[in-house]
């Protein structure tokens, strides 16, 4: 099976999020970058599926040269080769079109993404890719198996789960439950250095959205601490002051 895994380069989950240039630009100073945690799940699943089917895993990212440590890590975890489309990811439409352009020429059986990236959280690329390629997509998968030329997918729904089958190729956005994230071992890290990482130029695509500015969320007032022997007071406050019960 030939699998494509889409990788986002995102700030570490503990990063302090600040902005520069009059709050128009994310301040990257001192920020550590990682593979988007959901993409790590996708990649780990892909490596297992490829191992079971004598297949291959290609990792792809849209980003500048600064993303190469992240894509090398994807190779260390077990991708066979990597593609970097040399452009800044302007919006989901731009990214999906770049990946679709590459995928169209390379006949993958399965395309995996994380359910969303932890920077822009829009959860759009998987479904857009499906649409651009004219193939099915499942956006928040908790389970994925492939057998007899079809995918068996467990999808999260409000208050339960849905089991569905899909023809291949399919795009699947993976969430927790699909696979345990793999940690690269020393052999993987050494091997990653010699695995092919191809840099290709972007297709011409106009983004459809643009972030004009950022703000930090309004902070809450200071906490109203209630004595542990006065639990009734908390109930009263929730009822009369916060009006939430």
């Amino acid at each position, binding site marked *: 099976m030939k699998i494509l895994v889409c990788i986002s380069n995102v700030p570490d989950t503990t990063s302090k999020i600040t902005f520069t240039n009059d709050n128009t630009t994310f301040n990257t100073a001192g920020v550590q970058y990682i593979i988007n945690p959901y993409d790590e799940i996708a990649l780990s699943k892909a490596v297992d599926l490829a191992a079971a089917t004598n297949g291959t895993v290609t990792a792809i990212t849209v980003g500048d040269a600064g993303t190469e440590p992240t894509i090398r890590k994807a190779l260390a975890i077990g991708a066979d080769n990597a593609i970097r489309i040399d452009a800044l990811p302007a919006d989901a439409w731009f990214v999906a079109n770049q990946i679709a352009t590459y995928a169209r020429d390379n006949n993958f059986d399965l395309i995996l993404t994380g359910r969303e990236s932890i920077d822009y959280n829009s959860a759009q690329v998987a479904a857009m890719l499906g649409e651009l390629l004219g193939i099915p997509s499942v956006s928040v998968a908790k389970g994925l198996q492939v057998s007899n030329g079809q995918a068996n997918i467990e999808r999260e729904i409000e208050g339960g789960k*849905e089991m569905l089958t899909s023809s291949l190729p399919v795009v699947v956005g993976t969430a927790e439950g699909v696979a345990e994230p793999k940690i690269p071992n020393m052999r993987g890290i050494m091997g990653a250095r010699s695995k092919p990482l191809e840099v290709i130029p972007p297709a011409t695509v106009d983004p459809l959205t643009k972030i004009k500015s950022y703000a930090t969320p309004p902070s809450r007032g200071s906490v109203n601490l209630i004595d542990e022997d006065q639990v009734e007071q908390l109930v009263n406050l929730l009822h009369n002051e916060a009006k939430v019960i």
Partner: protein
Amino acid sequence: MSVLIYIENTEGQLKKSAFEAASYGKAIAEQLQTEAIAISIGNVQDDQIQKLGSYGISKVLNVSTDTLKSFVNQAYASIIASAAKKENASVVILSNTFSGKGLAPRVAAKLSAGIVSGASGVPQISGDTFEVQTSAFSNKAIATVSVQSVIKVLTVNPNAFPAKETGGSTTIEAYTPDIAQADLSTVVQEIVRATDTISLPEAEIVVSAGRGLKGPENWAMIEELAQVLGAATACSKPVSDAGWRPHSEHVGQTGIVVSPNLYIAIGISGAIQHLAGVSSSKTIVVINKDPEAPFFKVADYGIVGDAFVIVPKLIEALKKHKGN
């Protein structure tokens, strides 16, 4: 011109988030001085659909067919996009639910429309400018996004925009677009519903617990507290990682993001990743024995003390409150 709103149902019953999406779409339609039109797909009876009239929806396209009784991502997206063209919609609204996440980007791609997921508040519209806010960096920032396409697609989070009844009635139009075989590539085999619990993303009250509970055997009091409050239960990442609770309860940056009216955190220290998933809650209550727990910094109310003592007291106090 119009605003088109996709209305979700669960087994023929319109979802709470669907009424919220309707009200959100209506608010934008008023701003654009145009009609709010809805589309429903599945087996939804007219008496359900009629309810949308009092939320300001003037017309509902009803696609009622057994083929689409359960969710088929591609077919639904094709239908919503063709309805948007038929009604000359300039804005298309969907709920940012699990199904909505699968649908909205496909609808947007079909319409070459710019899309903003989890839009908060109505957009600022003037002339060719269309700007709307959404959260970014897992709730650690708010981004103002400018949408530059002719048609715009917005999704709205459950609980983010209140459903508003204004009175009125709606006309129902049976809509029977062609469904391409290629759009039926996914088939639902089985749906498993947790019958006695409340859906976490849609819950108005969430009771969440962390490692301070010491072990899965101690969750009975959390469940009882949730039951008294009519709340959904949730947990922190270490708890679901340890297998004490299912992943579907994990709230945080890499889990589910919730915005209930009331979030009660018990025995959760408040790591930045957890806070990212709950910071848009309207009221936060923290119960923790460590007065230095970072969660207290973002809480509205707090009690410093032992959860095993406080939670049973809280359950009693709430029962008494409900009794009055």
